């Protein structure tokens, strides 16, 4: 019978004690590969899930400490209301090494006695890593540092190893992510909406994708005409914020590769893109772009995503010892945040405004490499139809407009945003023609999709191809 069967309601509750002499080196009974740990400050569901995972850990198994056992570590759910009180109690009492569970682990600093911050819901690999560390016999907490930190904090601020102020991670409560847009109404499925709401949605669509000046495309002929009209006023993607962001991201990633592995814990580099009306704080390591002003305002949005002049934007990179300065700016000034892909997608949509990029041939075929994560990106009307059409095989902009019957501005916007993410790439004219003449050739009958033989074994690249 498992522990849960035997003691369904006897979960140990955390009690802070005044003892400060606990050995902070976790040790394991050699006779049985079981390391007792305490689970506190978490919901019953989280506790049950964690217990379920713990039961399956091998070769070293973590188990909930019974009342007579000394726990070697304390697991706390960082998102639980009691988490802070429990951490304080532990800090002032038993000083057990703490393992924090958090939805976004990189948002919480691993300041002692926290030794690990792992993602919720926990995965087997994360728990195995924690179990390995707890059972390694290495000192988990440095008592001298603990005292030093207390003295520092008593003076009003913490200091890092390099003597610079240690800045806490941006607080997710105060800097909410704009993406995922859980509450954003889908443009393509309006239901039970009042006229004002519909008008706001239409205005938002116009702001993102340009006005449908060519009229709604109800036939293939009118679609093609509209496409040609739109193509006559192309835009230069390189002159917009999205392209500049991509260039700086590439630089930051190269910079990170040059950094020693030992120094890569937490965000090690980032940069600020500053304009007169807004600052963007980009932290590639934690996949976030924070902004200092709400982009939902039309004026802010237009100023941010219109074509940039040579001196409209200044870039400042931060790395290593200067990172606390950037993190402090984020904490003090950021009002909302995006994932990097979410911001790149949005910037491409806003830059495109439903237009084709300069030099883009509407007859040039493209192929879809992977579907964009359409549930977590700025909604684009008929994006599923457009992506589905390109997923069926390589096609040109003209062909997609013709086959889907959607407004050209949406196809153009999708092209701009999907290429910015690397989800859509140029396909050779030759293979496109071959496919048109022999539609079944190249189609994998067993697998039911078009497969590029060269890509069959490799899968999508980690690095995005740019068009």
């Amino acid at each position, binding site marked *: 019978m498992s522990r*849960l069967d035997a003691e369904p309601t006897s979960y140990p509750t955390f009690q802070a004690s005044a003892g400060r002499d606990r050995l902070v080196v976790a040790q394991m009974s050699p006779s049985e590969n079981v390391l007792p740990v305490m689970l506190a400050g978490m919901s019953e569901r989280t506790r*049950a*899930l964690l*217990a*379920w*995972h713990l*039961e*399956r850990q091998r070769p070293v198994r973590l188990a909930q400490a019974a009342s007579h056992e000394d726990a070697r570590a304390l697991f706390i759910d960082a998102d639980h209301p009691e988490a802070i009180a429990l951490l304080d109690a532990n800090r002032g009492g038993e000083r057990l090494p703490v393992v924090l569970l958090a*939805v*976004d*682990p*990189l948002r919480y600093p691993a300041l002692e006695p926290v030794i690990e911050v*792992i*993602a*919720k*819901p*926990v*995965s*087997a*690999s*994360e728990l195995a890593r924690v179990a390995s560390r707890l059972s390694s016999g290495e000192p988990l907490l440095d008592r001298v540092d603990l005292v030093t930190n207390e003295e520092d904090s008593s003076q009003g601020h913490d200091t890092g190893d390099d003597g610079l102020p240690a800045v806490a991670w941006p607080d997710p409560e105060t800097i909410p992510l704009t993406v*995922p847009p*859980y509450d*954003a109404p*889908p443009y393509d*499925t309006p239901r039970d909406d009042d006229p004002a709401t519909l008008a706001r949605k239409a205005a938002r669509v116009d702001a993102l994708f340009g006005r449908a000046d060519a009229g709604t495309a109800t036939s293939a002929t009118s679609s093609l005409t509209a496409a040609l009209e739109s193509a006559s006023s192309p835009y230069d993607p390189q002159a917009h914020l999205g392209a500049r962001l991509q260039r700086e991201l590439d630089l930051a990633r190269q910079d990170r590769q040059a950094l020693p592995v030992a120094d890569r814990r937490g965000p090690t580099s980032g940069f600020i893109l500053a304009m007169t009306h807004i600052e963007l704080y980009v932290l590639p390591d*934690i*996949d976030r772009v924070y902004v200092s002003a709400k982009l939902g305002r039309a004026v802010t949005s237009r100023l941010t995503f219109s074509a940039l002049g040579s001196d409209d934007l200044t870039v400042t990179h931060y790395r290593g010892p200067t990172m606390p300065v950037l993190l402090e700016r984020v904490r003090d000034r950021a009002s909302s945040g995006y994932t990097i892909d979410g911001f790149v997608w949005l910037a491409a949509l806003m830059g495109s405004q439903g237009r084709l990029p300069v030099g883009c041939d509407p007859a040039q075929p493209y192929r*879809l490499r*992977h*579907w964009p*994560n*359409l*549930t*977590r990106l700025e909604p684009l009307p008929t994006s*599923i*139809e457009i*992506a*589905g*059409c390109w*997923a*069926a095989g390589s096609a040109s902009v003209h062909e997609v407009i013709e*086959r889907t019957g959607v407004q050209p501005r949406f196809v153009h916007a999708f092209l701009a945003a999907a290429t910015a993410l690397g989800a859509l790439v140029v396909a050779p004219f030759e293979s496109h023609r071959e496919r048109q003449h022999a539609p079944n050739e190249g189609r*994998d*009958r*067993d*697998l*039911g*999709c*078009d*497969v590029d033989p060269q*890509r*069959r*074994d*490799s*899968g*999508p690249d*980690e690095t995005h191809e740019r068009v």
Partner: protein
Amino acid sequence: MSIRSAAIQALTRLTNVSESSDPRVSKVLIAGPVGVGKTTAVRTLSTVPVLETDVVPSDETRHIKSATTVAMDFGVLRLDERHVVHLYGTPGQRRFEFMWEILSSGSAGLVVLVDDGAHASPEAVLDEYLAPYAQLLDARAVAIGVTRLVRGGQAGLAAWQRELARRGLLLPVFEADPRKRRDVERLVRASLIARQFDAPSFLPPDPSGRAVEEP
């Protein structure tokens, strides 16, 4: 004919509402491992009270949740004025595999929900939950919803995409929260979209313009 096979045949006929019987009605399956959120997804989308077959679990599932689906969940989604989707949530346990076969009969689409925080690798999960639906795979009528996707999770969205690409599959892979209507509805739409470009008869315009009556 044994009682079991007769029951299976009857159940298959009962749940086989394909476009051949009514072109305005599609049948979409929601499949995936235990505890991933299939029943929640059906509840989130359905515009009618959901038919559920939940019982208290007798296996290790009881550590995860207090009730588990043993036959199917059934709900109805109205996609637009003319098109209604019958949603069938499958049981997650392998021992109910016979229900997967029954429910897949006549299906137009398949949404596979996978748990990024779980122990199993993308390869193992897709092996188990895609293989039984070869016909739907061949028609590319499948969408993958990755739930509990957090930083530091098991695989991340790209890992699921890589595993699909390794199998030569270009399927929609979206992050999804089964409690969010928008997420699940997009998955259902994405699972049905491939047929639009393969089969011109998909979603024919209804000359009468009448909405389909919900059951």
